[in-house]
């Protein structure tokens, strides 16, 4: 059977374009009701709120790309946030007065995420367990460890130099935005310009065929979940520095925002499709909805309803673009 498909360039442009247009339409629609949205301060507030979500969505997209999912996000955030705070607290932290406190804390936080993720990846790859189950157990167990370590208390009193650095600006742009942007660029390069990126795509498209072609499923899977865990830990750092404290029971809803941002950005839940630009747009759109509705003094459940609607519309647009809705797949 012969049929022509648009080139991949056109298709990718279309994927990101539809999210960007959706975001624009949304801004234009709410602007009359809350003109503050257009101010510089509000714009930066949206971007700052979007930064940790973007980090999480990028991490999640590694798991989604290979056809898996990482539900352990809140567990990793809680544990690595709490452990980081225990090292960093001013008065009774493990390395309270040492100049090593900050680098050691950062390293340990990221390591916790990476190791937790890679371990879950290994369970998925070598024990052939469903990712959903493994990472759900991870979410519970890691969160449990965090509560156990702190006795359920929120940890504050973090090292001031770190907070100053993280909450500050560099070249008039908040440091946290630089971090998120840098991660996005790294992810894009990794996915598009490295052997590993190509192997991730291949496993997502067809793991069995990738294996026959000599690609190690175990290595690729461990990397994908390790990367997802590391991103969760990085997000933990951003959240901890913004709220100046670490909680052992981080809100699980953040997982759904991250998956939502990825899906809005055109990431396929069945694997093999990802776009960093799309994910950036997705994270922005979800944050925009939350921020603008809060500005309008609407309640939390209104925000949830609107988010649900926006994600659904984005998913429908994506499906229609690929010719699934109203026709044959």
């Amino acid at each position, binding site marked *: 059977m012969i049929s*022509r498909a648009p080139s991949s360039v056109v298709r990718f442009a279309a994927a990101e374009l539809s999210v960007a247009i959706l975001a624009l339409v949304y801004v234009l629609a709410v602007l009359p009701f809350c003109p503050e949205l257009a101010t510089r301060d509000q714009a930066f507030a949206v971007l700052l709120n979007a930064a940790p979500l973007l980090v999480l969505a990028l991490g999640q997209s590694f798991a989604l790309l290979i056809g898996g999912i990482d539900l352990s996000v809140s567990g990793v955030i809680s544990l690595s946030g709490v452990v980081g705070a225990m090292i960093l607290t001013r008065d009774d932290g493990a390395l309270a007065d040492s100049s090593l406190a900050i680098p050691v804390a950062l390293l340990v936080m990221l390591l916790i995420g990476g190791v937790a993720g890679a371990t879950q990846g290994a369970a998925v790859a070598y024990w052939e367990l469903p990712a959903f189950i493994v990472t759900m157990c991870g979410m519970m167990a890691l969160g449990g460890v965090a509560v156990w370590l702190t006795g359920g208390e929120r940890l504050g009193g973090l090292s001031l130099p770190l907070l100053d650095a993280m909450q500050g600006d560099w070249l008039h742009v908040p440091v946290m935005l630089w971090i998120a942007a840098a991660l996005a660029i790294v992810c894009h390069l990794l996915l598009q310009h490295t052997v590993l990126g190509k192997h991730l795509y291949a496993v997502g498209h067809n793991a069995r065929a990738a294996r026959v*072609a000599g690609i190690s499923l175990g290595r690729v899977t461990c990397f994908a979940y390790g990367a997802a865990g590391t991103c969760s830990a990085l997000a933990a750092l951003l959240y901890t520095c913004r709220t100046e404290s670490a909680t052992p029971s981080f809100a699980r809803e953040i997982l759904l925002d991250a998956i939502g941002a990825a899906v809005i950005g055109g990431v396929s839940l069945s694997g093999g499709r990802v776009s960093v630009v799309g994910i950036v747009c997705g994270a922005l759109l979800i944050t925009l909805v939350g921020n603008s509705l809060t500005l309008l003094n609407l309640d939390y459940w209104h925000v949830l309803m609107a988010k649900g609607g926006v994600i659904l519309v984005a998913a429908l647009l994506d499906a229609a673009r690929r010719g699934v809705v109203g026709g044959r797949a």
Partner: protein
Amino acid sequence: MKPLLECRKIRKSFAGVRVLKDVDLELASGQVLGLVGQNGAGKSTLMNILGGVLPPDDGAMLLAGKPYAPRNPAQAAAAGVRIVHQELNLFPNLSVAENLFLDRLPRAPWGIRRKTLASQARELLHLVNLERDPRAPVEQLSTGERQLVEIAKALGDGAQLIVFDEPTTSLTQPEAARLFAIIDDLRGRGLGVIYISHQLDDVMRLADDVLVLRDGVRQACGPASVFTIPLLIQHMIGRELDHVYPERGAAIGEEIVLQLRNVSRRGVVDNVSLQVRSGEILGIAGMLGAGRSELARLAFGLDPLDAGTVLFSGEALALLTPGRAVARGGALITEDRRDDGLLMNASVEDNVLLASWRDYAFGGWLRRRAAKRGAAAMADSLKIGGSLHRPVGQLSGGNQQKAIFARWLLRKPRCLILDEPTRGIDVGAKDEIYRLIRRLTDAGTGILLISSEIEELLGLADRIVVMRAGRLAGEFDRAEFHRERVLACALGQETFV
């Protein structure tokens, strides 16, 4: 006599490309029509139109004299048209009887009348000569048996016209023989049958009339008695085939590129030893289920060995994985392109480069332009037409197979394992695959060739080993190749010849 089915000037285009050009078709009750043509000739499209999967752009169909324009497969089935697909449409977790009567189960106030269901199912199974317990789940049946269930289902639903699309692809020879007997029986019952197949001798044996499609045009049509197989091939490809099996260009080398020593896996492969030299083609003959594909998977590290050793270029690997086999110059083309071969939604280019990304990288960083050039040059030399950016799933079967060959050719393998390399591809593309295989051996690649087409093995291989029930049952050198003897050995009936 009034025809059962009449198609007049059926036309269909996809995105401006005409796939069917004014095709006429006529079929009487109690007649078998053989439909042949290369992949991409329009057979599947024509059948999809007949089965209500696709609407025609233009043209008319009459079924038993009445206008017939199904809008979906359910309407086609209601009108009495059934398509038995390559991939069967049964629910493997339900019982045979439940599958047969899915939409009209005998109901009782408390549920289903199990006994009535079973006895009605038994009657239907009797029609197709299948003696199985109708309460058995379909997943316990062999492919051939499932096909019979599907025919029984069509009969039970009152089908007047049954279309078979490549029905023998995954059947053993006895199963195929049984199917042919059933098709004869259907003809006797006055049903119309359309039989689509690449196996031209089967078509000639079964069909009353033959219709040849080429590039969407009805190329030839008439009683089977006026055609011969060479004539059919000529109509299908538009030229006569001269050299089907290309001559060897270089001698067999000395180096042993692949060696299996006492390889076993419980229940499938039992103590198999063999070796392939560089430039040599070792054929493996055998019936379906003899353990040939399983042996290939073992040799490539896809399944774990229970015992034995595999050596690539003389090197034994302690832990054999596909990655290590590939790193040592191994390559495997599996029989199942869709599941084990291609990334169907990825581009042709990504599929060609799948095993070679590392070769086009410097410290993990891709040299994308070089990779693109490499893929394009390889696709060009294998004549894979069209844009390399379209999904490989849109290519014809022959071009898909060439894409997988291109993938391994890029790596210049020392040893290539081929499992049914020409299954489901048309005559012209087969010819190209044969030339590719020869090109590889001339460059010194040793090939382990598994094929169910005995002619292919006889034409290409330097030696043939025969597998039966997981064991090696015989070996033939090229000088002693003999079609019947190889077949008899595979069937375990040496005395038969």
